[in-house]
């Protein structure tokens, strides 16, 4: 759950993503990520819907 995003958790993901995040940055980054991810995960989406990564020729013709 997004509200379980912690500074330690963010530090682990940052290591995995090879992104340098200083110790003093972690709490604020964790707070921002928690808020944002909860908004993303609240986006309603029926299970049968496929991703729309960009625009296919079919969609371009609409």
């Amino acid at each position, binding site marked *: 759950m997004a509200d379980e995003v912690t500074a330690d958790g*963010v530090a682990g*993901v*940052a290591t995995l*993503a*090879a*992104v*340098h*995040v200083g110790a003093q*940055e972690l709490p604020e*980054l964790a707070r*921002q*990520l928690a808020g*944002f*991810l909860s*908004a*993303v*995960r*609240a*986006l*309603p*989406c*029926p299970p049968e*819907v*496929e*991703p*729309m*990564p*960009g*625009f296919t*020729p079919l*969609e*371009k*013709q*609409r």
Partner: protein
Amino acid sequence: MSADEELSYLAIADLASRYRRKELSPVDVTRAALTRIERMEPTLNAYILVTADRALNEAKAAEARIARGDAPLLCGIPFSVKDIFDVQGLPLTCASNVLKGHSSTTTAFAVQRLLDAGSVLLGKNNLLEFAYGETHPDFGPTRNPWHLDRSTAGSSTGSAASVAAGQAYFSLGTDTGGSIRLPASYCGLVGIKPTYGRVSRRGLVPLCWSCDYVGPLARTVADAATVLQTIAGHDPGDPTSARCPVPDLTTSLKQPVQGVRVGIVTREFDGVQAEVRTLTEDAVRALEGLGMRATEVQTPPFERAVVALLTLLFVEAASFHRTWLKERPEGYSAAVRDRLKMGALIPAVDYVHAQRARRVFAEGMAGVFEAVDLLVLPTSPGPAHAFTEEVPGRDFTPYVRRTCPFNLIGYPAVSVPCGFTSDGLPIGLQLVARSFAEDLLLRAAHAYERATAWHARRPAAVA
């Protein structure tokens, strides 16, 4: 208005016509534009680079071409480009120290189209750093010609200021969440975000591949249509470039608009400042007065589109900047660096979830467009805000709420001036059409523009 002012604000067709009648020379007009830039900079801070010698050489070549009688309308017309486009032999900064010392070895497709038409490049415009919502302190903010203590919005800051101040006759910008339309609204201009695939993105430093668009900022719909006509069309060098034929956009401006079905996105009239709402409602009545049929429509919630777009934007930007963020993080402003770090930490499943939400929103909007031909809504929630309101890292979602949904789904949109606040700041009206219907979109915008006089006002702050 002085003769210098009058010359600086001529419409492209008028200027081209005077060139052909030999009443004006591209060299003299370019020289006047360069003088105006020199006089207004650094107050406006609209330019990162002014290419004066190059511009005068291009103007001389344009003059010769016009004399031969085979010149397109844009030949000899001075313009500028956001410094996010490659122009061979010129520095490219994206208003960031990350690219310090970099020069482009190629020219962006859209810029090349304009140069091939004989347009005269005045220079490269200031912008928000990498078009990512923040001013880099070393490049500084661009000031709004309508009020020097106000923002131009972003990210095409210098492009908008330059055209509004009568320096350039048009400018090329980019729009990932509203970065053409919002500066157009703040600066009293016409700004077009075309359909995805309509204009090649080759030679543009990307922010978010699936939501980036190239388009014009100009002072009238006809000027903007002329520029779009020139830069639109298939580019085999851009894998997302569409093969659709480009209609004659300038001729179609003259077609009637009676009976065009306009959907009023009433819900998005809420949450804007009172004067914006009043002016937008006035604009709807003006559209009806032109014979368009306006009805209220219910769209899928825009706040969902904002979250979905920001997810794609955060992640795609982090992907593009990954190497630079690792190797030269000090080149970024702190706010952009923080945003890139956050994007790099968003899990892949959430990115894909946003792509799925994108499809839900796109299908909902396609349903709305079964009943209407256009949508109408405010471009921005208010007029140009004061610089004192700009805090690094601030939440910019209220600003992009009414523009970014159309980046997400590819539809073309235009912002046109629809009035002024009581303290003299311009307001923009946004029209949206279904994909590849730029001809209808611009025809409606042109009809509205002709029924009003907002586009004829000039900013006093730079007079």
